């Protein structure tokens, strides 16, 4: 898949890149980070203009994030009907209000594997759209211009950078899952914790 996309970017430039990052932002499993780093290298080689390409990619990815937030927002009614009575849902919503901004920011460029679920959660949990957008724009700016800049810096050796960033992102995702597991375990093992036997 990534090879096919790279060929298309060489041939058609910024519009196809915009489409790729937009579709990726609404949930399609596309190798966005690899593409962004490669595009930085293509800009250095003079195949693409970096200000136009960067701007197109940035606008498209932010629009895609906004759309996936909206999908969560409009699915809210049916989700609330099912889960709103549960204490877990209330707790999750409360903790997202506290940590949501940082989650949105970090999942734009560091733990990109869970960016779309975070967008949907933000929309569903009524995380304020304005705040979502502020963190989203900051994070995506790092993703597009920071990672693209690394690709630009390394030129034809961009694969080394992309390989490192992709694997590091996977490592971060693993750590998030592990920490979530340990936090839940700590809560579950706490003597006074209510080991819920309810059927919510």
């Amino acid at each position, binding site marked *: 898949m*990534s*090879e*096919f996309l*790279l*060929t298309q970017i*060489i*041939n058609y430039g910024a519009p196809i890149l915009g489409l790729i990052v937009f579709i990726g932002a609404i949930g399609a499993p596309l190798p966005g980070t690899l593409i962004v780093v490669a595009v930085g290298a293509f800009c250095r*080689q*003079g*195949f693409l203009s970096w200000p136009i390409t960067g701007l197109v990619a940035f606008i498209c990815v932010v629009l895609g994030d906004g759309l996936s937030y909206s999908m969560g927002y409009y699915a809210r009614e049916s989700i609330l009907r099912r889960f709103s009575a549960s204490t*877990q849902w209330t707790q999750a919503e409360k903790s997202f209000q506290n940590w949501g901004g940082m989650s949105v920011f970090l999942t734009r460029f560091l733990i990109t594997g869970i960016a779309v679920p975070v967008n949907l959660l933000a929309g569903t949990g009524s995380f304020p759209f304005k705040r979502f957008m502020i963190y989203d724009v900051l994070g995506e700016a790092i993703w597009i211009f920071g990672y693209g800049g690394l690709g630009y*810096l*390394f*030129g*034809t*050796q961009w*694969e*080394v*950078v992309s*390989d*490192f960033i992709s*694997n*590091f992102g*996977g*490592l971060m*995702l*693993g*750590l*998030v*899952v*592990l*920490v*979530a*597991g*340990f936090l*839940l*375990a700590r809560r*579950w093992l706490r003597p006074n914790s209510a*080991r*819920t*036997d*309810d*059927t*919510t």
Partner: protein
Amino acid sequence: MTASRQRALIISLIIIGMVIVGFFGLRTLHAFREFRGHRPPPPFAPDAAQVETDVDLIRDWMTISYISRTYHVPSKILFDALGIPSRGNEEKSLAQLNEKYSPKTPGIIVEVVKATILANQPPLPPVTAIPPQP
């Protein structure tokens, strides 16, 4: 959620997390070693210094036009060496060209392109020593 399901969820999260951390941890370490071994080319080098010479960086997703521009070898030379017309093939990747013209010998197009570049790349300007500062 029942207590047994909670326990199963926690154990699953920890096991999956450990597997992901182990897998990507090793890959990250390997990628970091590779990364450290590379130095980026000088950012504002003149055009001649930015000509790529390492043919091992050629991949089968690249097109002939892209390779021609990266390695400063005219695309006509590359198409002639491959014995295929340039018309209608400029936007095709090497993999697609291989599939179309040599489906029985996978990878042959990449190898021919590499050899053609090595034989036809213009010589790089000589490296001049920087004079010592007084």
